[in-house]
């Protein structure tokens, strides 16, 4: 094999490796990234041994707004059984985020990923997308979009199933 051919193969392999890194995202069955290392604005709750729903939302996303009452109800109903919702806003402008929270007052914890480091790492397929994590910190379900009562019912069933699992 000539030197040129070897160089071309090496170049192609490097490009392939780069491409594979570029599309890497979190997968069901693997641990969800530690939220504490992404410099999120706001206070993260202690989620040790709890079932967690990480919901990515934005003030400009209409279905995200529609999901808030359902998520607030779920948090209220299932919180005592070991369930926590963390809403991660991907808004870049803090004033829009603050105004939205003041208006809608969600009944769950929200933080802001202003630098969009977390959302770029997770690579959400659409807005809104929520990630359901079991008591051991393993990602069990990815749900994209919010379609009213149907989505709320589907998520509630999955959350209850995870709550029944022992840590």
């Amino acid at each position, binding site marked *: 094999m000539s030197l*040129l051919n070897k160089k071309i193969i090496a170049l192609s392999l490097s490009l392939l490796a780069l491409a594979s890194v570029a599309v890497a995202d979190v997968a069901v069955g693997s641990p969800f990234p530690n939220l504490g290392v992404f410099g999120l604005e706001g206070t993260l709750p202690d989620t040790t041994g709890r079932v967690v729903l990480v919901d990515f939302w934005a003030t*400009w996303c209409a279905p995200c707004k529609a999901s808030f009452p359902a998520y607030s109800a779920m948090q209220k109903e299932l919180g005592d059984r070991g369930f926590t919702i963390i809403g991660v806003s991907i808004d870049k402008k803090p004033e829009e985020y603050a105004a939205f929270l003041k208006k809608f007052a969600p009944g769950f914890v929200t933080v802001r990923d202003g630098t969009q480091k977390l959302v770029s790492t997770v690579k959400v397929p*659409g807005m809104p*997308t929520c990630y359901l994590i079991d008591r051991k910190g393993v990602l069990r379900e990815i749900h994209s*979009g919010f379609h009213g009562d149907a989505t709320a019912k589907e998520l509630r069933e999955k959350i209850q199933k995870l709550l029944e699992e022992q840590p």
Partner: protein
Amino acid sequence: MTRVIRLWGCLLFGSVGLFMSGCTTVHPWERAALADYTMRPDRDPLATAMTEHIYFAREASSGGRGVGGSGCGCN
């Protein structure tokens, strides 16, 4: 030797074309500007009415125009 130079030239040209092209993927979390109200095609009711009038007169059809929502691609 000419063949090698030509091959490298093609590779270089291809790489430059690939990495410096104007096309890019707008990720779901980068669509705030696209979701803005000003991006709606029907944001101005008067302009919409006039455009529809022209369209329907030209195409001899009515009610076959328009889409809902803006460009955030949500849901």
